[in-house]
């Protein structure tokens, strides 16, 4: 799994460049909390530590990349612990998680700290390499400070505290496609650059570490569903390219939906699984109350993936003839 970590490093580096030291602290904290939790639980279960597989590092990195850059570090540590403890170790550890652990951690954080997880900060803020975002250093168990003053001081443009998806949903302002594709926009730490995530995913696909069908199916179905909505009511719904490049869809489709343990294995099942997640993402984004739906879409996809596997079992070679011969 070490190669997935390598593939995620450019995304992390871009995140640090875009959001500064806070993003670095966020990534390090999430990874450290996840690794420590896995080590601890392996010891508790009297099993050899599964940290060396590096998949827990991926969980930590992915968790950090889906959080707002100024997310308080103590909450990040809680998230890392929950992700690995609840999402992975309690199900039996490495290779037994029924959900993507990073998303379990994020879903927990979303439900526990709904305000902190929707407090976004501007990209390319002034002094981002010399100064933490104030919320990052909130004391454990204490509320993070309000961000309005700090944002007014450091922003380089008229940042209203909203990601492109929030602007689309609540203010009906659609961000242009090119900056969205390149990633110099506000958002969760590692989700902004669709281009970079695509390149990193392409590296994994080229080296055959990842099933290309899952992201292909998910992106395609999100594109088609988004396009259908757009055609039905262009004024209300953004164009399908916005759907594709905004929010966590790229990161989710390439790095989270492809979790080897929590996704189906049959060739047809993989397509159904991806298509389902893309469709659910668009439905949550357009018809639900939340601006982003990738996380719940993937968790839902994980939940039904054993059923998809059951429904799409290929015929065992030679069985039909035998049945015919019998009758």
């Amino acid at each position, binding site marked *: 799994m070490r190669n997935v970590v390598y593939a995620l490093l450019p995304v992390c580096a871009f995140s640090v460049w875009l959001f500064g030291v806070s993003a670095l602290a966020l990534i390090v904290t999430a990874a450290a909390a996840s690794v420590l939790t896995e080590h601890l639980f392996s010891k508790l279960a009297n099993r050899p530590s599964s940290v060396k597989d590096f998949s827990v590092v991926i969980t930590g990195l992915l968790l950090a990349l889906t959080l707002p850059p100024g997310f308080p570090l103590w*909450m990040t540590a809680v998230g890392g612990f929950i992700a690995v403890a609840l999402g992975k170790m309690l199900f039996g550890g490495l290779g037994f998680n029924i959900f993507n652990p990073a998303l379990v951690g994020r879903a927990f954080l979303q439900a*526990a700290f709904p305000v*902190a997880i929707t407090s976004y900060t501007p990209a390319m803020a002034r002094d981002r390499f010399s100064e933490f975002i104030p919320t990052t250093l909130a004391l454990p168990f204490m509320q*993070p400070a309000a961000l309005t003053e700090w944002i007014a001081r450091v922003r380089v443009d008229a940042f209203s505290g909203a990601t492109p998806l929030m602007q689309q949903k609540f203010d009906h302002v659609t961000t242009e496609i090119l900056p969205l594709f390149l990633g110099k926009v506000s958002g969760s730490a590692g989700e902004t650059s669709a281009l970079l995530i695509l390149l990193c995913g392409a590296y994994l696909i080229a080296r055959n570490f990842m099933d290309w069908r899952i992201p292909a199916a998910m992106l395609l179905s999100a594109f088609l569903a988004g396009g259908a909505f757009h055609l039905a009511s262009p004024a209300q719904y953004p164009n399908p390219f916005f759907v594709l490049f905004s929010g966590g869809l790229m990161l989710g489709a390439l790095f989270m939906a492809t979790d080897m343990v929590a996704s189906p294995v049959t060739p047809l099942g993989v397509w159904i699984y991806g298509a389902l997640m893309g469709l659910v993402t668009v439905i949550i984004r357009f018809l639900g109350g939340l601006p982003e739906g990738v996380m719940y879409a993937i968790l839902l996809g994980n939940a039904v993936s054993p059923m998809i596997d059951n429904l799409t079992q290929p015929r065992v070679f030679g069985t039909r003839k035998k049945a015919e011969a019998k009758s």
Partner: protein
Amino acid sequence: MHHAHGLVEPSPSESMESFLNGLWKQNPVFVQVLGMCPTLAITNSVRNALAMGLATLFVLVCSNALVALVRKLVPRQVRIATYILIIATFVTIVDYMIKAISVPVYKALGAFIALIVVNCIILGRAEAFASKNPVGKSILDGLGMGIGFFFALLCLGGVREILGAGAFLGYPLFGPNYQPWVLFLLPPGGFFTLAAWLLVFTSWQARKKRRQAPAEVQS
């Protein structure tokens, strides 16, 4: 109670055991995993947990006593209906009592007061214990189970209110800057907390068994 030694009345040690069973070894929530509906639904604050625990304790003791009293008069075929009637009577009493004592608690508990009627702990004790045992022992059993349930609700309510609101019984513990974990006041928080407590209890018991096992091998 000293004159109670006899063939019909149980010995004090046996009564004591039926009392302690409910508290710990057969705790209705942590060991038998019964009465999950109120356990999950109304433990979002210590106050609600207290009220529900006391109400259930009262109903359990009274219904156990009355069921034990009439156990020889009730035909087998209509026993469940009789139990329900007896339990419902006491639940109605509790319902009016809570309404008289505190309207906010009454509103917070809502339908769950009426639902004590179908609480499987109460019906379970009536069927499994009170219908086969004398009054004194049944009362003790009801007390043990009731206090065990009360204790379990308090465990859940305590964790949920402390984490979810930073308070205990409404008194803030950590000052105004505490970050509440909203999740713990919501239904999933109830499941998480119950699961965590069950984990603690089962691991305790597993450890105890492991410790006892080598001793048994030696003997």
